[in-house]
């Protein structure tokens, strides 16, 4: 949101505090005063995911610099693609050396919870001050009652669509039910602006929509006790629905990787896809009139709701964790507190153009979410997601099933007609069992 000024950011901070107090949003635990005292002469190393939006890292580094100026604690920030952060975090945990803080993804901290510093006091403080944590973010941060990681936000995916295209197909808005959504997609196909959802090994886009489709039909990879339940009628129903949906897809989606739908949408080839806010940001900030026109003609919506009767979206969630081997755990917590406080976090949200949505409810009041109504569907992403490996626990198996594209391949097999839905579900269940039984 380039239209927002620093004054707006400050207002956002004040509004956040006022909203929390005024609306009587009592913290989940009474707001604890923060008394963290960093170790003398501390220095920190932080490893985080590489930015997709330049404003993200610019704001992050500016706040880090401010922290150093205020505390004297030097902080070195390294970035890696988020797929590379995972093995580095695991190796750091294993060898007991490396960055003090790592900001990783989804299940990462649940692979080595005993190696991490307890962040309960910090999470309670922030949760108390900023309206509480969203439930899914709490799930991504806690093991039992202990906070092992501090959720940083959710990389939200929404339906991205061309306004003119859905109107041409006879719709004013995106239907919120599955039959209506299918009908819209069929209409889009017949009017020459087809739909496109990735079915290739696209870590973000393909996992997002296939998990949504599975979960919204009531299907899941495992139950709460980690028994593999993929080979079930709900899964078959999800695959049959996806097969009908895939008939409305533009060609080539079986090979699509994460950037593919962005390119196709920005080239005007697509009427609808599933993606983060990045397509809109690129179009809106472009000087190309054709892209500007696409920005004006596009909007976002939530994914529809099926038999599960609740939001069942799947998005990448980012969390920060501190290793016990760190010589400066108090300084690390102080740094995280500083970065998660309203002054810094609101600025980061704004500069990131809504690429990440907040884990703390009070930050939903950031004016960036409503200054442009097209940003708003991304605001409550954390309220609409289920955790990875639903309905089982987070850990190695849930990460491996996603890393091995088991759900994506299952949908790809069914959608391409390579396997009947029942066989695709059965094959995927066999693959998943190998991870959950090890």
């Amino acid at each position: 949101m380039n239209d927002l000024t620093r004054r707006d950011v400050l207002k956002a901070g004040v509004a956040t505090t006022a909203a929390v107090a005024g609306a009587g949003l009592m913290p989940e635990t009474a707001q604890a005063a923060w008394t963290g005292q960093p170790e003398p002469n501390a220095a920190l190393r932080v490893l985080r995911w590489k930015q997709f939006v330049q404003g993200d890292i610019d704001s992050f580094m500016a706040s880090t610099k401010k922290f150093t100026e205020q505390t004297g604690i030097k902080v070195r920030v390294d970035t890696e693609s988020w797929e590379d952060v995972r093995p580095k975090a695991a190796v750091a945990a294993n060898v007991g050396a490396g960055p003090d803080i790592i900001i990783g993804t989804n299940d990462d901290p649940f692979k080595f919870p005993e190696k991490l510093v307890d962040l309960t006091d910090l999470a309670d403080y922030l949760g108390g001050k900023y309206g509480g944590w969203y439930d899914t973010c709490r799930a991504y941060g806690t093991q039992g009652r202990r906070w092992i990681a501090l959720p940083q936000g959710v990389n939200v995916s929404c339906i991205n669509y061309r306004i003119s295209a859905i109107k041409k197909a006879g719709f004013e808005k995106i239907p919120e039910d599955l039959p209506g959504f299918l009908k819209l997609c069929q209409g889009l196909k017949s009017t020459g602006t087809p739909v496109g959802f990735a079915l290739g090994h696209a870590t973000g886009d393909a996992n997002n929509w296939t998990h949504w489709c599975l979960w919204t039909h009531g299907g899941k990879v495992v139950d709460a006790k980690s028994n593999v339940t993929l080979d079930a009628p709900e899964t078959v129903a999800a695959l049959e629905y996806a097969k009908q949906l895939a008939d409305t897809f533009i060609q080539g989606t079986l090979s699509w990787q994460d950037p593919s739908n962005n390119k196709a949408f920005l080239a005007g080839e697509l009427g609808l896809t599933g993606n983060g806010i990045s397509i809109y940001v690129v179009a809106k900030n472009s000087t190309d009139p054709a892209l500007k026109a696409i920005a004006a003609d596009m909007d976002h919506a939530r994914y529809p709701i099926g038999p599960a009767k609740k939001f069942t979206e799947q998005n990448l969630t980012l969390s920060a964790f501190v290793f016990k081997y760190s010589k400066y755990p108090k300084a690390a917590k102080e740094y995280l507190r500083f970065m998660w406080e309203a002054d810094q976090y609101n600025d980061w949200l704004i500069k990131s153009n809504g690429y990440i949505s907040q884990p703390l409810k009070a930050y939903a009041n950031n004016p960036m979410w409503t200054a442009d109504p097209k940003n708003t569907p991304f605001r409550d992403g954390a309220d609409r997601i289920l955790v990875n490996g639903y309905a089982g626990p987070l850990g190695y198996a849930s990460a491996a099933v996603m890393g091995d594209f088991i759900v994506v391949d299952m949908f790809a097999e069914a959608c391409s007609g390579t396997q009947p839905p029942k066989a695709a579900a059965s094959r995927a269940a066999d693959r998943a069992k190998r991870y959950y039984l090890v």
Partner: protein
Amino acid sequence: MAVETHRLVQPGRRAGWAFHDSRHRLGALFMLPAAAILLVFLAYPLGLGFWLGLTDTKIGEAGRFIGLGNFISLAHDTVFWLVVFNTMFYTVVASIVKFALGLYLALLLNERLPFKSLLRAVVLLPFVVPTVLSAIAFWWIYDSQFSIISWVLIRLGLIHRYIDFLGEPWNARWAVIAANIWRGIPFVAITLLAGLQTISPSLYEAATLDGASAWQRFRHITLPMLTPIIAVVMTFSVLLTFTDFQLIYTITRGGPINATHLMATLSFQRAITGGYLGEGAAIADAMVPFLLAAILFSYFGLQRRRWQQGSRD
């Protein structure tokens, strides 16, 4: 005297042995750095890889010995067998075509051609470009919406819709094979060209005087003389193709529906992305028999040198 002689001989013998010993010691000393490098950077990782394949190690977590558990599990894994097929198909087809086209190019470049040096430099270009860059170029060339090939064919009126190069399993297999061939030909061509230039022209002159045709000269002079270098080139070509990673990872990431996954890419996906180092290592271990076969092929191919040098084969 006898005693004295004995005394005289003994120091001499001792001196000889000392020299002998010191030569051996010196030799061993000189070999130590190379041996250390081989041990640390080759033997140890290889041994560790084998060991990991026999454990259930996950990234960041010490594993336990499970014997052949990973291999038994892989034996029941349909994706693994599909990947073995993909790897074999990819390697065999790409290696044969690279050899045929590489040899053809080498023979052409060995002729008297205008701008010969320039042409040889141009042939090397695909090999010079970093693999990831050429892979990204192919990714665009094969794009289902923006392919330059499809665009040209449509403009020429030869097709009416874009070709789905990477979205259909067999199209994708052929597409990545074509990319591998493009990238691998220069290595084969330039190495074979070097081999061709070692063949004495007098052999061809003698054969021509005897009335040998071009085909006979190729069949009875070029091919036998080139055999040792062909063995080496093809061994390397097969090894490099079999262990290919970058092209697949960049162009398809193993898709669609694992149709282009190779053993190297699946090993990476399971070990690093998935976190199951033990299983990833087991997949890598499963590549070893194939690689050994390629090395043995080279070994026996090289033996033919003796025959060419006048010894018995």
